């Protein structure tokens, strides 16, 4: 692994994890399956843009796919 490549952070890093988790579930509770899919897609894109770094995003996708 190239020491100069940014690394995906897999250490606990979410503020108030239980609050975040509830927020996520609540936001989607009353949505249809299709609405949930669309919203998840948007959320992925918004967060991906915030991260920006291609290497980090690739690592994230690998974790998600495993």
């Amino acid at each position: 692994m190239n020491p100069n490549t940014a690394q995906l952070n897999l250490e606990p890093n979410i503020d108030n994890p239980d609050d975040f988790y509830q927020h996520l579930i609540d936001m989607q509770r009353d949505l249809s399956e299709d609405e949930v899919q669309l919203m998840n897609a948007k959320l992925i894109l918004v967060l991906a843009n915030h991260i920006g770094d291609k290497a980090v995003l690739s690592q994230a996708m690998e974790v998600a796919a495993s």
Partner: protein
Amino acid sequence: MLNTYTYPEFDYVQSPEQRDGKLVRHPVVIIGAGPIGLTAALECAAQGIPAIVLDDNNTVSIGSRAVCYAKRPLEIWDRYDVATPMVEKGVSWKLGKVFFKEKLAYEFDLLPEEGHKMPAMINLQQYYLEEYMVAKCESLDNVDLRWQHKLLSLTQHDDYVTLNVETPDGIFALEADYVIACDGANSDTRKMVNGEFSGQFFQDRFLIADVVMKNDFPTERWFWFDPVFHKNQSALLHKQSDDVWRIDFQLGWEADPEEAKKPENVIPLLKQMLGEDTEFELEWVSVYQFACRRMDKFRYGRVLFAGDAAHQVSPFGARGANTGVQDIDNLGWKLKLVLDGKAPVELLDTYSEERVFAADDNLKNSTRSTDFITPKSKSSRFFRDAVLQLAEQHEFARPLVNSGRLSTPTPYVASSLNTTDSEVFSGCMAPGTNCADAPIVKNGEDTWFLNQIGGEFTLLVFGEAPEVESVNQGGVDARVLVVGRDFEDQTGVLTERYDGQESTVYLLRPDQHVAARWRQFDRDAIKAAIATVTCQH
């Protein structure tokens, strides 16, 4: 239908060789007189190679077809002195807008800088394009356009190719040192060499229509995702000459193409889009399915493939004809050197190497656009719609909106013909890249840099003139061109684009691509670079 243009009928003329029963060996025979075949004829003529063109038809393209011609092809056609009528008749544009439902999602500008002779894009009906090239060919002594000549079969030998050709007067044979196959996506020539042609078909169809109407829409490419007038599908609008507009409607895979083409089905679609009160006339309609495919290699012995015969792309991004023209730009000078015995036949393999590389770039981009316009899976559709919705209000999503990335040249970054930089240069003019244009002054007149180069090797020198007028390597001459002596860079744009610090030297290929560059005039280095770029060992 087909009212705004009178299709010419070119005369069939029996060749003396057929009439007299003589077997003649020609240096180059070109199959197909479409945009790429005609470009090949003009390129050969410019290189001093007599060219025969065989076409089984006797007129120009029916319908507007390709429409969008990009800057690099225009620069190439300018080398043959045929671009001026195209730019004059065509509609120049560079701005595009992409709409999602009723709102603007994304805008682009294809040429955000000044200082180029050619526009970013022109829209021109293909029949005009071909008409101008045919007229140019007819004015040249060393181009022979043979209409109603159909290639039936060919046989390759060590030193030449035998072609069996059918005309209204029967079948006859002729021979060629080399054949350039420009006979389109369904190329028969490709089948004759058992050429591989693989990739993917997209399960979707588009209806394309030329519509005559007067209106004030700006000269911009407009693309819609899910517009109110064509829900859940895409649409595209382009302005052409003679008040002819090109309108494309995505039909989806279930549509019956024969039904969809009928005027009684097309007109209601157009009325929905343009409004009940807009007056228009339907000029031409076609339905097509698209594919992204290419041959494994573009040289099969003495037969070279160019244009759609070699590679086929979906149209989003105008990468079809525009790529084919660049194929010919790459091939012509190489063929000339090989025919003259100044380069080994291996140089023709670099045509395949460089243009397969470019084809892959174009296939990649066309495929990505097609996936965005016609998502292949449910999940992909959600992401596509997510991008479009986010793009309405958030700038970050706009670069993801992909209704077509418009054709640009592909720099041959890893080509075996390049000499790698040994020094640091700023800007984009790296080896393998097509030369940027720039405004210059020559003999007191405003003109353009690209018009000073091309067709042969050039040594572009910034600063003091070297002692020699050219450098020769193995029979190949590179002619010295000095900035400041042979023309002036009054605006400084050329020097900036080429990082032309004092005593900088560029070796430029006949196709106006950079082969090598240095910070001083070194004859040995130049000779080595010429040897590299012509495969001389």
